[in-house]
């Protein structure tokens, strides 16, 4: 018992260490970092904060709008193409946001084919389309790639209970808009909040899209103070502010969830008896369009644009094709390994937090959730600083080499970032298991370990599968930590896509990008399947 307690504390410490290092930067504040911060505060920081805020606001509107509308449409209505759209709506999850950004920019920028064609066709001069490399462009790209989080969780929540409750409301004479407003949306609200929180955290941590689009966000400021000003303290202090914002986002989300806790385990079975509303004519076309647009813009169009870039400008004759399989395999195995670990850790943490809901463990678990919002490069710094300190203090241990020569450091960084994703999924699973179930089992003398195996696990399998697949997709897209912490000769598809794009060879970068999307499709498809089958009760 004590052993597992110590092990739990150890895991929590490992997951919190990079974040704590970031917070610890305030203790070492010196004149130089103060100068950097003050200089930035007087010049650029207000702008950074403002554009981060505006970006978040637009992404929030986008993901909640697209995610909720599509989830409501596919779960409550029956129309032609629904079954295909139901899983197609998840496809943008396989697209790294930076890849979507490359694809659209190449096509839509001033010197790109779209504007050139328009100018030639109508004899126009100058800019014909709005600039894609801008705040709104970044917001669109992020919203299109992040809305599946909301869709996924909202769909899960609605599929379980909404149809039969909607049926009941209909029998009581409520109109369709009223049923959606008064029944479906409140049911989906915790899930929408959870999905939106994930999307917000991704947006705050994003560097790839905003730097490519020249949008100066708070994260840009962190990178600048670290990379250019060579001041890791200032960077860490700025990151603290970011963490503060995320904390607020998470608290708001948790509040939204705790006020609306619907636990019931017989719902899924009954849901299958109720039938969704059948649509015809104009309503059917509208429903199809509402679900088709996010898929088209978030997946089909960027893929076609990448294929086009590959076709017209990609010179792949001198490509090391033999190593392509290596890159793919590396992407996949890193993703799978992390995903299994993350799901295991997350379910354990969630279980412990459930056992002692008001204890320090619960607080620590909340803290772990912060990792997702920390930009990858900041996690790398937060992880490497203490490692470097231990290495300098006890050089004989060789800790420095252990972290980077093996997968240890990389897996560590991944877990710090992505256990939060797994936790969200596991948590949403636990919310649906009434606490009275635990209590009855405990009163009958069931030990905790057996409670988990015999009661929680069978009810949680679907949430666990979702956790594994979500993390798998996320890790395959991850860049900053992979770039810096991977062992020798462990290139991944994301790394190759980035290296080629950095070298401004977008045509060639299209190839690993497409491969990345292709590999990412596998877990996305599985995810969709896993979510369609309800948990056994």
């Amino acid at each position: 018992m004590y052993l597992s307690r110590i092990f739990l504390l150890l895991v929590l410490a490992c997951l919190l260490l990079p974040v704590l290092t970031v917070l610890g930067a305030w203790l070492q504040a010196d004149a130089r970092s103060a100068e950097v911060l003050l200089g930035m505060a007087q010049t650029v920081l207000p702008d950074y904060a403002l554009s981060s805020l505006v970006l978040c606001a637009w992404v929030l509107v986008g993901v909640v709008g697209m995610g909720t509308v599509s989830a409501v449409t596919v779960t409550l209505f029956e129309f032609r193409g629904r079954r295909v759209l139901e899983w197609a709506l998840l496809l943008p999850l396989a697209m790294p946001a930076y890849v979507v950004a490359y694809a659209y920019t190449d096509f839509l920028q001033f010197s790109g084919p779209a504007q050139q064609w328009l100018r030639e066709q109508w004899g126009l001069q100058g800019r014909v389309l709005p600039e894609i490399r801008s705040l709104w462009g970044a917001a669109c790209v992020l919203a299109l790639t992040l809305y599946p989080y909301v869709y996924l969780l909202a769909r899960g929540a609605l599929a379980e209970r909404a149809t039969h409750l909607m049926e009941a409301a209909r029998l009581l004479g409520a109109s369709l808009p009223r049923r959606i407003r008064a029944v479906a949306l409140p049911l989906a609200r915790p899930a929408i909040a959870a999905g939106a929180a994930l999307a917000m955290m991704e947006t705050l941590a994003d560097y790839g899209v905003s730097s490519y689009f020249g949008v100066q966000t708070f994260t840009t400021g962190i990178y600048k103070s670290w990379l250019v000003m060579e001041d890791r303290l200032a960077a860490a202090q700025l990151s603290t502010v970011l963490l503060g914002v995320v904390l607020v986002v998470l608290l708001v989300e948790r509040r939204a969830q705790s006020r609306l806790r619907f636990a019931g385990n017989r719902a899924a079975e009954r849901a299958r008896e109720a039938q969704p509303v059948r649509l015809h004519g104009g309503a059917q076309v509208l429903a199809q369009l509402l679900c088709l647009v996010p898929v088209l813009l978030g997946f089909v169009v960027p893929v076609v644009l990448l294929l086009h870039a590959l076709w017209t400008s990609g010179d792949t004759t001198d490509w090391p094709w033999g190593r392509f399989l290596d890159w793919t395999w590396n992407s996949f195995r890193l993703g799978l390994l992390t995903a299994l670990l993350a799901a295991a850790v997350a379910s354990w943490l969630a279980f412990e937090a459930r056992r002692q809901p008001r204890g320090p463990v619960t607080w620590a678990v909340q803290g772990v959730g912060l990792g997702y919002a920390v930009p990858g490069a900041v996690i790398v710094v937060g992880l490497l600083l203490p490692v470097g300190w231990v290495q300098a203090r006890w050089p004989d241990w060789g800790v420095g080499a252990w972290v980077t020569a093996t997968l240890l450091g990389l897996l560590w960084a991944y877990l710090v970032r992505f256990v939060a994703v797994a936790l969200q999924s596991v948590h949403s699973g636990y919310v649906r298991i009434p606490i009275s179930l635990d209590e009855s089992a405990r009163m009958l003398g069931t030990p905790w370990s057996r409670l988990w195996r015999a009661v929680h696990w069978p009810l949680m399998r679907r949430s666990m599968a979702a956790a594994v697949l979500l993390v798998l997709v996320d890790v395959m897209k991850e860049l900053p930590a992979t770039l810096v912490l991977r062992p020798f000769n462990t290139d991944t598809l994301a790394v190759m896509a980035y290296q080629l794009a950095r070298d401004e060879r977008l045509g060639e970068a299209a190839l690993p990008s497409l491969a990345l999307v292709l590999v990412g499709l596998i877990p996305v498809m599985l995810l969709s399947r896993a979510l369609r089958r309800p948990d056994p009760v």
Partner: protein
Amino acid sequence: MRSPISIMPHLGALLMAAATLVQLPAAHAQSQDKVLNLYSARHYPTDEALYSQFTQATGIRINRIDADDAGILSRLKAEGSASPADVILLVDAARLWRAEVDGLFLPVKSKVLDASVPATLRAKPTDEGGSAWFGLSTRARVIVFDQRRLKREELDTYEKLASPQFKGQLCIRSGSHPYNLSLFGAMTEHLGPVQTERWLKGLVDNLARPPRGGDTDQIKGVASGECAVALTNTYYLARLMRSNKPDDQAVMAHLGVVFPNQASWGTHVNIAGGGVARHAKHPENAVKFLEYLVSPAAQQHFANGNNEWPVVPGLKLENPALQAMSGGGFKSELVPISAVGMNQFKVQQMLDRVGMK
């Protein structure tokens, strides 16, 4: 309800699977003396050939990590004395200087390297002799312009880019990109900080659009009429010039290239270079590798295969694009790298003040 799955019978299979996924380093055990561990910020697919030729010639296998300069530096600092790195390659002079100051290089005494690399393109010798790092190739930062709209004489210096006549006509990538930071750092040496800040303000006033994209995007901006003048590295320019794709050739059709400040201090060049890592486990192999990189064959590869200027003097250029744009040679500036490196902080603060993104 299903009975809980017992995990024990699956444990063996799980462990096997985990081992495959982790691919423990022990499986890669190899003879220690025929290995070179390379940390490289070079990110060019054409370099593959360069490395495999070295392996063929010497039998030394290269293990490689490619990452960006900043990532490599923080990784090296964390690894400390346990670092497996033998050679560090970076692609920006200021970063080379930073790594030197942070003590990440092991100064090297090599007759071959000293004889091949000019003194201005390597680190200042330490007290014991030997240099921390050596330049291996350079790229010039040049001005490209639309020949239909502007004349060469109007923009033959960097200073002229700030003149009001180019209002709304300048394209540039982010000021915080290392290529621009190095140029601005060198300008600070030539003009002094006050003048440089005024010059930067002039650049901001002349922007056709906020800074964004890479150097290739700036060139395409000029070609498509978005702007009339832009700053770019020769590396990207030469690649477009040598491309046989119709789109790229169209870009080059009306483009003029200026090597600025030929009548004064010379055109700004940035250095890609490398050195032996402080805690190298195979220092002899490391020196061998650096010496190989300044050999005529490797230098020719930098020039011809990757469109960079070789550092070894007297080498005949076989790259038609580099040849054409420079007329065979040009005057490059001589600013101490340490000064450029030290100015970065100051430059970023200036950029923040004048509002260049």
